[in-house]
């Protein structure tokens, strides 16, 4: 079977390329990865008028064939037919922003020189008109020597004409691609400016919307205040809106587990299905509400053009930690959960900055740490004020958050000077025009994020949950013996116990550490299981657990346990998503290593300091 003709959609960033791609292919898109790099491959099918299907591939936005980022390198390699895992394109659609021809024509000129059958989509002509710009597409066509079609992708204008032009182009005989010699950008840019000038019929100066909005949104005082308000709403929503769907998912999973438990005979199979598989699926799906809500906001911020402004406002502060302004939102998101936070690092185009951000994201205190913190604080920190109405318990909680953030900043600084050194780390970004986000593009984006999470991270999470189940279930306990003590997990815990004894951890904690890998909050129930507490509801279980803890742990041990949880990468999902986002096991392995090392040192230091102080 001969592969379908491949049409590459290329253009500079902010040309409206993805909107045009969505308008051409609809929701029937496939998202994959180019082999060996963390660059997404978006492709879709288009049926021409005569019924012939073609494959469309949406190339990463690029300013020229001379790459300044890994994304741009992929774009160049695909266009030159040199990208591994991709066939050479048969035709090109070049998307240019009608109101930014001076700049976008440079890349278009480079692409036309390649000699492939080419169409130029003169996109966002409506916005150009709004800006008082009157263009002559015929003149542009004559200057460029290829068909030029006016489009407004978000309103589906010009899409049919574009399809018809594609039809003609695919049918026409074609010749091979010319070799691309690294061209000098400056003369090319000058030619682009001349052509743009020629294509402009008239220009009436109007004060642009974007400029007015920026006057407020980038204002030195109003700007940060508005950003804070936007983020406040966003995080309120992530917590408040996700609560109900999460509880639905949890009760749904519980219902299914109950149903399965009723049907299946008592024994290993039932345990595998109920605790392993259903529990594992539940562990994956329960992340979805937060991921979807967070990405809903991130996609809105991206599509409207505000995301870049937020990065602009925060760049100086993030630069102090060796990161760029782009890292701000992903890191903030990690306070809810590191999984969507790490997925959000895709907006950072500098690979070293992105990697550093991924590596420190787990240090942001995610919501799963809260149950652990709450339990230990309630059990060991006296409920009294330290003056001015400040409670000691709240203060300790705050201290744990601050330690996490401080640790992240120090880790970022250290990493940026060592393992993730170099790579410019520059902050150079276009501030695009503000635009109304299109519902369709947001929905497609959300759908793709959900699918990526479920397919790539979900499989690893499910697999490890089943593995943890197996470790905790074999060999089976004899009557009167505790299952967790008898299992392989119990044996491993004995090994762990030797390792963690020097930092003040006891047998209970070492038994809880392994199951807590599934999710941090599992540590609470795991400790509960160790004490074989069976209480009617969670509340009394917690109270009982607190009392038991007080009896069996010293304060020094409790504090060490808290310090451990600030740093320890106790979360399979985070490790899985890091593997997915860095395309290999090298960086998740490094992350797990340095975080466990930090956790060990922090817990040890806390324990021995506390012991020395006689706590």
């Amino acid at each position, binding site marked *: 079977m001969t592969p379908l003709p491949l049409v590459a959609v290329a253009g500079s960033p902010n040309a409206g390329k993805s909107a045009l791609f969505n308008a051409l292919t609809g929701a029937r898109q496939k998202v994959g990865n180019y082999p060996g790099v963390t660059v997404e491959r978006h492709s879709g099918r288009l049926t021409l008028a005569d019924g012939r299907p073609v494959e469309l591939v949406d190339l990463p936005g690029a300013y020229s064939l001379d790459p300044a980022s890994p994304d741009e390198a992929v774009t160049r390699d695909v266009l030159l037919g040199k990208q591994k895992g991709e066939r050479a394109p048969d035709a090109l659609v070049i998307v240019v922003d009608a109101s930014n021809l001076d700049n976008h024509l440079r890349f278009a000129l480079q692409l036309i020189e390649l000699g492939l059958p080419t169409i130029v989509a003169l996109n966002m002509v409506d916005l150009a008109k709004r800006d008082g710009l009157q263009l002559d597409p015929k003149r542009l066509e004559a200057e460029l020597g290829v068909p030029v079609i006016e489009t407004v992708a978000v309103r589906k204008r010009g899409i049919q004409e574009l399809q018809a032009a594609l039809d003609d182009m695919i049918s026409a005989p074609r010749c091979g691609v010319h070799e691309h010699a690294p061209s000098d950008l400056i003369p090319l*840019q000058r030619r682009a400016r001349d052509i743009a000038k020629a294509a402009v019929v008239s220009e009436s100066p109007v004060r642009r919307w974007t400029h007015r909005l920026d006057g407020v949104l980038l204002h030195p005082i109003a700007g940060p205040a508005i950003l804070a308000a936007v983020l406040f709403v966003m995080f309120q929503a992530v917590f408040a809106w996700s609560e109900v769907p999460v509880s639905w998912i949890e009760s749904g999973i519980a219902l299914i587990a109950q149903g399965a438990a009723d049907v299946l005979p008592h024994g290993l199979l039932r345990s595998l299905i109920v605790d392993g598989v259903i529990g594992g699926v539940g562990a994956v799906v329960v992340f979805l509400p937060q991921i979807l809500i967070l990405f809903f906001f991130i996609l809105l911020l991206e599509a409207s053009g505000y995301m870049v402004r937020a990065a602009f406002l925060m760049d*100086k502060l993030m630069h102090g930690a060796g990161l760029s302004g782009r890292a701000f939102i992903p890191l903030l998101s990690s306070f809810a959960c590191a999984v969507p936070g790490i997925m959000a690092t895709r907006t950072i185009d500098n690979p070293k900055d992105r990697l550093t951000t991924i590596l420190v994201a787990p240090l942001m205190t995610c919501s799963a740490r809260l149950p652990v913190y709450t339990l230990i604080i309630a059990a060991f920190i006296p409920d009294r004020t330290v003056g001015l109405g400040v409670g000691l318990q709240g203060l300790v909680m705050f201290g744990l958050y601050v330690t996490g953030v401080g640790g992240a900043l120090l880790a970022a600084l250290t990493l940026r000077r060592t393992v993730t050194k170099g790579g410019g780390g520059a902050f150079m970004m276009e501030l695009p025009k503000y635009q109304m986000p299109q519902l369709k593009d947001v929905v497609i984006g959300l759908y793709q994020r959900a699918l990526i999470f479920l397919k790539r991270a979900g499989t690893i999470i499910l697999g490890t949950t089943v593995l943890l189940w197996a470790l905790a279930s074999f060999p089976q306990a004899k009557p009167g013996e505790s299952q967790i003590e008898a299992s392989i997990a119990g044996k491993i815990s004995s090994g762990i116990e030797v390792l963690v004894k020097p930092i003040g951890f006891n047998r209970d904690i070492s038994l809880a550490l392994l199951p807590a890998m599934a999710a941090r909050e599992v540590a609470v129930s795991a400790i509960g299981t160790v004490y074989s507490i069976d209480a009617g509801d969670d509340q009394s279980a917690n109270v009982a657990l607190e009392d038991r803890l007080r009896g069996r742990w010293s304060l020094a041990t409790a504090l060490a346990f808290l310090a451990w949880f600030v740093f320890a990468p106790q979360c399979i999902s985070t490790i899985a998503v890091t593997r997915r986002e860095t395309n290999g096991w090298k960086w998740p392995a490094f992350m797990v290593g340095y975080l466990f090392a930090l956790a060990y040192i922090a817990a040890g230091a806390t324990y021995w300091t506390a012991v020395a102080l006689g706590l």
Partner: protein
Amino acid sequence: MTAHFKPESISLDQLKIGARASIASIDWDALEESEACRLKHFGFDEGVVVEPLHLGPFGRDPLAIRVGRMTVAIRRSHARAVRVNIPA
């Protein structure tokens, strides 16, 4: 009295907000390769008119600069590599 020596150009980061000036020269060697490449992508070139529009709220960094029909954000340290003719 000798005529005061007037420098013909200042660096872009010293240009006032809202002042337009044409680029006199760019010290490409002061930039890393990918940074220089990106500036060229943004259309930075001798003779092109630039205008600082906004400053970052912390430490007046980064800078939002209009270049051609685009607005771009660059850090002050990179803006120093660009010299502009003093506006009349």
